[in-house]
């Protein structure tokens, strides 16, 4: 396997872990935020470095140089590939911007140490391809939000029950996979597939296993809930654990259930009376889109789903941060009346619209092409039912505008203190807005990279029962490294 030029992956995780340790010992909240920002910034830089380095190598997957993990575990655990390469900087960016946009009113309630710990776990999860490693890391990832709920003396039963079940099902499912010959064996019994499937449903919040998500948004801090859901770790688990071994009919079933969830959540979002719950359902609908596209194993749908994954990470991340910024100013935001906040924070209003529109695939934003590809792929797979995805997208668009009107329009809200956007928040939302616009105006690079990732995923599925061989054409001269790269999976080649 090819090595990166520097141990970027290990650096990003280690920096976050050290950061968590350092920040946990600080008593002053302001100081904790400053340190957290520093560590999170370095982790972000490392992940960007890993992405660029990987891009320059033109290979299918690569690992860190110096092989620190090989000394510890006996083999390389942290790997970057076509799928994870842009997801790592996305995750790091979301954590960095969340820390950056945390206002003074919130810093006492928001735990920066737990956030950094959580960042380390999520980065490690997205850098890991080992099934048991992913299971362990996904299980660990549920601990920081749980600790926060306990620390804030909030009800934990709903979250703990769902996450406990998720962990048990993952372990049971993969144990059966192991007993049946591991993931090299392409045909597995339902004893292995069903528990894994249910685990993915729970973590992804697929109806009716989504109650934990709205409950988390109810009781955790907005920042914690946002960071726990926006990377869509459930989809990552689906890609790594289920996609390579599940027969086609199973994937199609997941696709249909996800489609139902997408429509259901978009409808539920419209009747919510509070902003956090609205965001939760909006996100749920979009993450169901991603899962649905991933399970329709056609090149177009898969490419669309991977594009939407990135775009909703950025757009709904920004959308959530905008709502969080408003919440910092007004407390919990009810959606039963007009708040009249436009005159106070026009920049937030613009960002709200921009990120919201990007999430629903408005032309000129990052989400547009991804949504088009996804719709194209879904309609191809389910010619009539697939139209429901367009309905869900339309409902999400309506919900977004309805919430915009409720928050920003109405009789001007009077306040004796300035509610203007702070420079930090402005920076955070402008960075996200710029990424969404630039990605939308020049989408080819992103789409091409996602197409390559889709090709790799389909390649990994070859030989699974019921799965027809998928022929993926090459794009241009910088893609065909695939052929060389496939050889790099062969163990006898060793490290370059």
């Amino acid at each position, binding site marked *: 396997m090819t090595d990166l030029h520097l141990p970027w992956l290990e650096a990003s995780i280690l920096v976050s872990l050290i950061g968590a340790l350092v920040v946990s010992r600080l008593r002053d909240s302001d100081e904790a935020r400053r340190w957290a920002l520093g560590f999170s910034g370095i982790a972000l830089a490392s992940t960007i470095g890993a992405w660029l380095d990987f891009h320059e190598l033109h290979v299918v997957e690569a690992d860190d140089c110096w092989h620190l993990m090989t000394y510890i575990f006996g083999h390389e655990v942290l790997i970057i590939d076509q799928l994870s390469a842009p997801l790592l900087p996305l995750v790091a960016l979301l954590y960095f911007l969340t820390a950056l946009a945390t206002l003074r009113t919130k810093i006492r309630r928001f735990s920066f140490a737990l956030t950094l710990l959580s960042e380390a776990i999520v980065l490690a999860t997205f850098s890991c391809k080992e099934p048991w490693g992913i299971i362990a890391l996904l299980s660990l990832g549920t601990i920081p939000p749980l600790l926060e709920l306990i620390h804030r003396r909030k009800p934990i039963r709903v979250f703990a029950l769902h996450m406990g079940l998720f962990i048990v099902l993952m372990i049971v499912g993969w144990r059966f996979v192991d007993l049946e010959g591991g993931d090299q064996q392409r045909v597995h019994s339902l004893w292995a597939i069903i528990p894994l499937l249910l685990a993915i449903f729970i973590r992804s919040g697929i109806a009716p296993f989504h109650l934990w998500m709205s409950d988390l948004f109810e009781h955790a801090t907005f920042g914690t809930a946002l960071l726990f859901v926006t990377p869509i770790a459930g989809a990552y688990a689906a890609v790594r654990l289920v996609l390579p071994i599940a027969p086609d009919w199973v994937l199609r079933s997941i696709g249909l259930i996800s489609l139902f969830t997408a429509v259901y959540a978009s*409808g539920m979002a419209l009747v919510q009376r*509070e902003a956090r719950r609205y965001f939760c359902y909006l996100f749920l609908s979009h993450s169901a889109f991603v899962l649905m596209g991933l399970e329709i194993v056609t090149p177009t749908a898969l490419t669309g789903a991977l594009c939407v994954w990135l775009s909703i990470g950025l757009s709904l991340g920004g959308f959530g941060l905008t709502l969080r910024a408003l919440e910092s100013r007004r407390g919990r935001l009810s959606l039963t009346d007009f708040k009249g906040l436009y005159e106070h924070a026009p920049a937030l209003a613009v960002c709200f619209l921009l990120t919201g529109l990007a999430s629903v695939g*408005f032309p000129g934003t990052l989400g547009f092409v991804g949504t088009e590809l996804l719709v194209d792929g879904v309609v191809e797979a389910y010619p009539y039912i697939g139209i429901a995805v367009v309905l869900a997208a339309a409902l999400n668009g309506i919900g977004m*505008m309805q919430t915009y009107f409720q928050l920003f*329009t109405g009789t001007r809200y009077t*306040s004796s203190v300035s509610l203007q956007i702070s420079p930090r928040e402005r920076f955070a939302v402008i960075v996200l807005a710029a990424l969404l616009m630039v990605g939308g105006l020049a989408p080819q690079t992103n789409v091409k990279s996602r197409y390559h990732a889709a090709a790799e995923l389909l390649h990994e599925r070859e030989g699974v029962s019921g799965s027809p061989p998928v022929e*993926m054409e090459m794009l241009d001269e910088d893609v065909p490294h695939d052929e060389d790269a496939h050889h790099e999976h062969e163990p006898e080649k060793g490290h370059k």
Partner: protein
Amino acid sequence: MLSYDLIFHLLGLCVVGAPAVLFATLGLSTLLRQRPLTERTISRCSQTAIVIGLIASVAILGMMLGLGRRHVPINLGTWVHIPDYHFVVKFEFDRLSVPFAILTFVLCGTIGAFASRYMHREPGYNRFFVLYSLFLLGMIVTSLSGTIETLFSGWEMVGLSSALLVAFFHERPAPVRNGLRVWVVYRFSDAALLIASVVLHHLVSGGDFDKFLGTAPWPDGKAAISGYEALLVGLLLLAAAAGKSALVPFSGWLPRAMEGPTPSSAVFYGALSVHLGAFLLLRVSPILQLSPLLCVVVVLLGLTTAVYAALAGHAQTDIKSALCFASLTQVGIIVAEIGLGLRYIALVHILGHACLRTLQFVRAPTLLQDRRILENAIGERLPRMPGFWERMLSERTRIWLYRFAIERGYLDSFLNDYIVAPFRRVFTWCDGMERRSTDLLTGGKSRESDRAETASGPLEELL
């Protein structure tokens, strides 16, 4: 030495680029600057962009006439390309798109100049012009699009700017609710267009108009799909056009759109935006040709809309609503003309009607003054003669018709009672069930958000 193709290309870039640069300038300044641009700067930017775009489009028209070319495609390259999907950014200058683009520049230019005075010192001056520039860009992209995806992009921009402009006076709840209503209808019409676009992609492996409407210049193209496929795609496109042009049963949003500032009402709902559905039908008219049944549906929809709008227009009590229904009557007739295959007549009808209606809308605020001048001139109240139908129909029928007209055909009530209300009931029930489930799992009340209303307060209360 510049070749004609290069000149066409440069001029085409100016036509599309001028509104794009205007929108980018006004939009970015709103996002990045603490203080918005001054009124004078905004007005000058708008005028410059319009003049550049208009001169370039007239130059293209002149060159096309001079060189005898009926079709000038301008390909800006492949935006996205993967093996099963490609997205080409292509604009087409032909007998349909060039008049529409020139009409857009002329009317937007006129209204821009009018609005710079009408909106003087209005707190949302900058916001108005940002949305105006987005609308202009959307109109130009839609008019000149050479692929269905490009058309969809422009279509969405027009929809967004329209909804936000209806809600322009956002301190009051009524404009905001109406803006949301407009947005809802537009989203469903956009959904129909998106589905049509996807279906076409599958049928002809691409969204280029050349592929499914034929390579001959408009209106001589021959669609490359079967009659049944034409019916399916045509119905979807008709649904999209019906939403955008407020055809029955989506007509309810049009009078609601009059809550926006007069300049936007004039140029959007009186002149340009309301004709966009008809433009779409004209653009895809080779598809209509393939299915006689589809043509019949188009004619019937157009005539129904025309009769409905004529009836409703007679009972309106404010000038903007009366004008919008008058406008809709003509749009209905235009759609019927398209269904009958009278494409050039429909195009000329659109151009003439848009100009007349813009003038009427812009004059609307001075209606009372005009009436007073007339009455002073003749020295008495303006005479009111009973119309033909008034004499022919019984009183009972007239009362029924009046109620039907004043309630605008009960279209809004129908949508509210039979679509919105059941939808809300179903999902509110689901929300209730979710609440019970989480309460059960939690062992008590699980929703902190119920207290959102009492908890929310100004920042100083939280400190």
